[in-house]
């Protein structure tokens, strides 16, 4: 087994392991949960880009993509956090979240 095959295996495993995060994006229950899931998927996409580079034998090229993607992912997460924080303080999300926390507590 060469390292390329191993890399493909790692990539597939990463994709499979992303499924829980995807589930969290779909299930919620709050918007913040979805953003946490999306952030996790984004971080792993950075890794996947490196792996794709290894598989294609062009790591020097894909490493730039990975770095750019990581930067954009970081900016996106911070922006989402800032944006939703304002929303929550204005009391828009509260109605649904209070019900959710009641359910979980009960």
């Amino acid at each position: 087994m060469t390292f390329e095959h191993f890399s493909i295996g790692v990539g597939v495993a990463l994709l499979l392991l992303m499924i829980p995060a995807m589930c969290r994006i779909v299930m919620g229950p709050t918007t913040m949960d979805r953003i946490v899931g999306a952030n996790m998927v984004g971080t792993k996409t950075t890794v996947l880009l490196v792996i794709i580079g290894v598989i294609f034998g062009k790591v020097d090229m894909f490493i730039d993509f990975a770095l750019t993607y990581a930067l954009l992912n970081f900016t996106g997460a911070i922006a989402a956090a800032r944006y939703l924080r304002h929303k929550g303080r204005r009391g828009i999300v509260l109605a649904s979240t209070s019900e959710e926390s009641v359910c979980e507590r009960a």
Partner: protein
Amino acid sequence: MVISFLSALLILAGLVFFLGAGVGILRFPDFFSRMHAAGKGDTLSTLLIIAGFALYQMRDLGDSEASVSAVLVALKMLVIIAFLYIASATSTSALAEAGWEDGNDPVIAPKHENRLAGPPESRTAAADLNRNSTHDSQP
């Protein structure tokens, strides 16, 4: 060969931690513990996997022809690692704070509820309102 083996070991360790993060984000009961799983497991697994690949790039360092670009690539991977190390922690912090102000409440065992109610001065009025309403609605 040893280096390949070591890097494979690092990558597999990363996958294991990522599995932990995945289980955590799926199974933990409230936002903050899920955040905890995602933040820690995700960051560590990413660092380990990329470190594994960086190590693999250095496998034939003695070969003068390939070594310059290989070292460059490995250095770039280290830059990614450093960046993710900062960025992941920061975004986790920002998201957790946003979640707190958004009105997410941690799930707390009933007997500790009063003790661990969180720093009172940072609680927004909205969160307090939320807390009161949940108290009222409980049987």
